[in-house]
């Protein structure tokens, strides 16, 4: 059967210089021996590489994070996800303790903290303690970095890291004597300002058929929770979707939860998350929402039902020789469901909540806002160049190295709704044919320019009618060219963007209640400050095929 053990952890910086080697068990292949073999593997490198020729034969696990490379060699059969999850936890914990984003210099600057963390998290290969809160009890960040961070108030470092020295030492003696009551929550948490933040982030994965019909549409959500409350609070977070309670059950699919969430409660009443939070920021839950109706309705399903504020259409093989393609970006200012969301949606952190039982997250200052719109169009490798990137708005570049056209569309101006178009002309590979007809080519370009001027204005214009009679004899040749150029056309385009204050799924936070009866050590009359943030992102997630 499988034996689960981490044998070693190596970290390399962006120049592939080893910055950390921590061996847990036995004698794994050294960092120096392994790195070249890892690099020899063609990119993209899988997270698991088998190296039979190393001594001992090694399974190499790797995770890339912020240009830092985390490698872990294992010489016996091990559950791969065990090692990978461990690597991810190491990253999370390091980020929490020595600062986010994690940088090589930060690791180098605090080897002692890192050493304590690593030996605390994994004892001779057995992973034993990966809860940041529990680690905070065990590891003295106060060494120097904790206070350094505390003094400077570095963003991202959890504020709970840094009680003053004396208190810290008391804590380190006190809480562990009986063992932690709740493994994920630090003992004796004290905060002067009591705050609770809920950040719900949904990332879109939408595939549209050439017709515009959605093939699959998912929103992958994650709920990040930040709790800065003294004592042991007991919280109840209520989510709701448009369809009420039943809708909730249907909307949120395949959830995963932080261990603190009471599963029974969720099962009984979907949408209610009852938990005692860890101190600081943590991922409370992850879920997904199928934005398409159930599969049964698929046949009658048309794209009008899936209203995304951003979508794209591609038309290709345009122009005389079929060497043009056009991407249309459709930005709508209508955010489906935003009207109901408006009171709760907050572009920034919430204002002060007024009550306990029915927290009001303040009235929204502004509606959902769209930003960072980038259209990415992969171009077939055979394409030599792209001339004439004409964007009606924003700027577009072709990067031959990656074979990608990137088009950035600013969204600052006004509501920025409306359409934008990008028209490109591709230059195919050099062939003998091309050389023969070099003058014809020049001629076409001259013509094309003329046509294009019009087309940039009327975005839907396709083959502009031929005017010159002289072109008649060229017609057949053009047909052939169109055919030649057809495989050089892009086969998909995707768009990335951020929308603050809007969730594609329509899920919203109905309430966040601090149960004072069940909680302990809150202090008198504490009314925590509550904030909710919604964000929908797409990282090349909305993809149109063509």
């Amino acid at each position, binding site marked *: 059967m499988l034996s689960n053990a981490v044998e070693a952890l190596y970290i390399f910086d962006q120049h592939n210089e080893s910055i950390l080697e921590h061996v847990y068990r036995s004698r794994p292949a050294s960092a120096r021996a392994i790195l070249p073999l890892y690099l020899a593997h063609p990119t993209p490198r899988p997270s698991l590489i088998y190296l039979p020729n190393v001594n001992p034969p090694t399974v190499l696990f790797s995770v890339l994070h912020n240009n830092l490379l985390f490698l872990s060699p294992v010489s016996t059969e091990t559950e791969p996800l065990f090692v990978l*999850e461990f690597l*991810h936890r190491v990253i999370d914990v390091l980020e929490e303790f020595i600062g986010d984003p994690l940088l090589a210099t930060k690791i180098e600057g605090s080897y002692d903290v890192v050493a304590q963390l690593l030996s605390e998290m994994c004892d001779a290969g057995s992973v034993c303690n990966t809860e940041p809160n529990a680690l905070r009890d065990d590891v003295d960040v106060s060494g120097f970095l904790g206070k350094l961070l505390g003094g400077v108030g570095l963003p991202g470092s959890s504020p709970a890291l840094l009680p003053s020295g004396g208190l810290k*030492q008391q804590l380190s003696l006190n809480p562990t004597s009986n063992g932690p009551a709740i493994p994920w929550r630090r003992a004796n948490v004290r905060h002067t300002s009591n705050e609770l933040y809920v950040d719900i982030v949904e990332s879109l994965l939408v595939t549209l058929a050439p017709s515009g019909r959605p093939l699959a549409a998912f929103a992958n959500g994650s709920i990040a929770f930040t709790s800065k409350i003294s004592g042991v609070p007991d919280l109840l977070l209520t989510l709701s979707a448009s369809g009420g309670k039943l809708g909730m059950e249907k909307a949120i699919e395949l959830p995963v939860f932080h261990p603190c969430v009471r599963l029974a409660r969720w099962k009984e009443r979907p949408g209610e998350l009852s938990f005692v939070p860890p101190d600081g920021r943590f991922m409370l839950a*992850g879920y997904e929402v199928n934005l398409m109706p159930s599969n049964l309705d698929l046949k009658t399903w048309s794209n009008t039902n899936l209203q995304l504020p951003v979508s794209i259409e591609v038309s290709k093989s345009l122009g005389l020789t079929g060497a043009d393609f056009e991407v249309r970006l459709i930005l709508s200012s209508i955010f489906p469901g935003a009207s109901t969301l408006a009171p709760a949606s907050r572009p920034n952190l919430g204002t002060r909540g007024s009550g306990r039982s029915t927290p009001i997250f303040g009235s929204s200052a502004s509606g959902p806002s769209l930003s960072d719109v980038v259209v990415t169009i992969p171009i077939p490798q055979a394409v030599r160049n792209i001339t004439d990137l004409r964007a009606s708005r924003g700027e577009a570049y072709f990067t031959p190295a990656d074979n990608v056209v990137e088009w950035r569309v600013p969204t600052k101006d006004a509501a920025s709704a409306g359409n934008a178009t990008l028209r490109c002309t591709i230059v195919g590979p050099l062939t003998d044919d091309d050389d023969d007809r070099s003058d014809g080519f020049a001629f076409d370009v001259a013509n094309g320019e003329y046509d294009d001027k019009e087309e940039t204005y009327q975005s839907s214009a396709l083959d502009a009618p031929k005017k010159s009679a002289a072109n008649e004899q060229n017609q057949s040749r053009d047909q052939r060219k169109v055919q030649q150029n057809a495989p050089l056309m892009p086969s998909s385009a995707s768009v990335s963007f951020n929308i603050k204050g809007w969730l594609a799924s329509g899920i919203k936070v109905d309430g966040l209640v601090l149960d004072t*009866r069940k*909680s302990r050590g809150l202090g008198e009359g504490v009314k925590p400050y509550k904030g909710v943030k919604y964000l929908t992102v797409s990282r090349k997630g909305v993809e149109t095929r063509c």
Partner: protein
Amino acid sequence: MFPPGLILTSARELTLEAAQSAGSARTVNSRPSNRDSPFAQTKKLLDSRNDREVLEGLRKVISMMYRSKPCLPFFSAVVKNVASPNIEIKKLVYIYLLHYAESEPDLALLSINTIQKSLSDQNPQVRAMAVRVMSGIKVPVISQIVSLGIKKGCADMSPIVRKAAALAIPKCYRLDPNTLPQLLDYILTLLGDRQYYVVGPAVTAFLEVCPDRIDLVHKYYRGLVRKLVDMDEWGQLATLRLLTIYARKCFPVRTKKMSQNKSKGFYEDEDKEQEDDNSGEEVQVLDPDLELFLKACKPLLSSRNSAVIVSTARCFLHLGTSEYIDAAIGPLVALLRSPQDIQHVAMNNIVAVCLVRPESFVGYAGHFLVWATDPPDISRLKFEILTLIFPHCEPHMKEMILSELEHFTRAADTALVQESVRAIGRCAQNESSASTRCLRLLLAQLSSQDGNLVAESLTVIRHLIQQNPQAHVYTVIRLAKNLDTTTNAEARASIIWLVGEFSSLPEEENIAPDVLRILAKGFADESEAAKLQIVLLAAKVYLHYLIRITPAQAEEASDAPSTQEVEGAPLHVSSPIEENGWQETHQQPSSDQRGPEPEQDSTHPIPLLWNYILHLTRYDTSYDLRDRTRLYRALLSNPQSTQLASLLLLAPKPIPHTPSPSENRKGLLIGSSSLVIGVEAAGADGVMGYEGLPEWVKEGKEPDAKLRDEALTKDAYGDRKDVPAARELDKAVEKKGLGKIGAGASKDKTLDDWLAEEQESEEGSTEETESESEEESSEEEESESEGDEEVDRLVKQ
């Protein structure tokens, strides 16, 4: 413990220190300017009497250690600080010690005494560290001392020390396997521990030290199952592994025939599931204890840890019934939300499950559409899933899958194109109703300018045609037409070969001679692969011609050769068209017989063509081609004896069946590295240390089920049924209230107790009422049996 003075001064001191060490860290890292004396400097720091300086020195040493710089020379200077009362210093010294003890065993031994003293420190954290370090020092001489230390740790009041002890057990075992008998005792003590986070490491230790001693687990089985949910992820992983093996070894597969008569089924149950001969569906019956385990696993499916989800899926797949497997599928699919590195591994596992239960994945088809951002490995696996679920889908879903695959035939990545075409082929092969649609799709690809795509499509088309040759006579004609335009060498070769396979058709439908005629014209310009196939085609055509004109011989050879011939016909035997073909060949000769002109060689175009090809190839540059031609010529030199030739040339081709690419990994355990690496790379036995699950124990050989409840019945509960649990609890509380003075109250509570307790206690300070409320809550919250066991434990205490 800290000297009180330290705490007082610390605030100011620490601020200073922060500034200093930040500065010093920078010098260590970026500027090796004061190179002349770094060693001496560091050593001086280490020898200092000031804690702050010592700490700084230690930090420097640790930095060097992590950068693989030699810091062995500091060994004695570092290790003598082991006696420092400062816990921070202690921690760093311990880290150093663990790293280098092996290289300096003698010096390391000097520190053992001090560490041993720490085992009795007041601070449980210090005790835990001491246990960990002592067991981590790889000096075999001290194995007995380590063992004693663990023993002490196991009996410690603080669970964190017990946890450290549990983690130390495998280390001690590795140090000296002779300590096994003692270690076994410790493990069993810890397996029965009340604290779920002590039990987790104890299970890990068990798996490392004595995975085969399943017989020791019986007593703890139910406890482990109950604690499973509350353990941390890593403990859950270990426990899942242990209990999976345990279940295989202790619960035989029992099946029950579901008879039509329900009441009868009920009685069968009563009769200890005696199998009777009633016809009916076989249904697996789960042992109640096994079911207990499987049910306890279900909540784990919403774990945030992907490894736990895959492990749970493994349990369900190998132990559970189909309902359990289905429950695990959604969570598995949800792993596609994780980062890419985890996705890759998860996909491999999903495919493995999908091979077993494709139908359950149908609802998730949308998740397996390939995103533009997917790396090739993941796309490949997604295609595989799509093809696996294809036969089980609704028609519109099938259409979607096919268009998805078709889309990727236009992808830029050649590997992806190849995969998608193959996937289309597999779809057609697994679902005959879709095969025409697939074929049309593939035929459309033939006009593509991408040679690679054309070649791949043709290979797949060829396989499809071979599977059902009768239906595809016209497809072949259509393919032959493509010879005019197709330029890709392999594609041409494929088509020619296919035409050759169909050369036995009756004359009216037979295009083979015609194709041969046309090809012969352009023979010189063909690629070698195509030339080889042309020669083969010529040989086949000529052979069929010979068979036709020598009926006498065919008849003479009577049944034997003719049946041979039938078998030898290109396509398989039993098919009706083959029969026809055979009859035709007989008719044909008979018509020839009427006008008997057996020596038509000189005028009939086929022999002419044959000879022409022979001439052409004789002067070809390729050895291989010339050799083969010589072979065919020799075979066919005697027009009277075609028997050998037909055996050779017209042998039936096995029907190609392309298995799903991961089919060969089916036997590998999901969640293992070997599964991801694959049989090709890792070998059939998997990576070193790979071991499959044990087989189910045979019925009748399993250990007695009573072993599992022994702990319950023997110790405390003769009177279990008579006395209400509540009263038991009350008694226990009284006893316990006396029993635990020194130990912290909260250490024995399970998570549920602890949380429930808060509900109970209205006031902020609960220290006094804690024990009481705990018991009350356990009474309320837990099921009766659990409550009972709680009492059991308390009583023992």
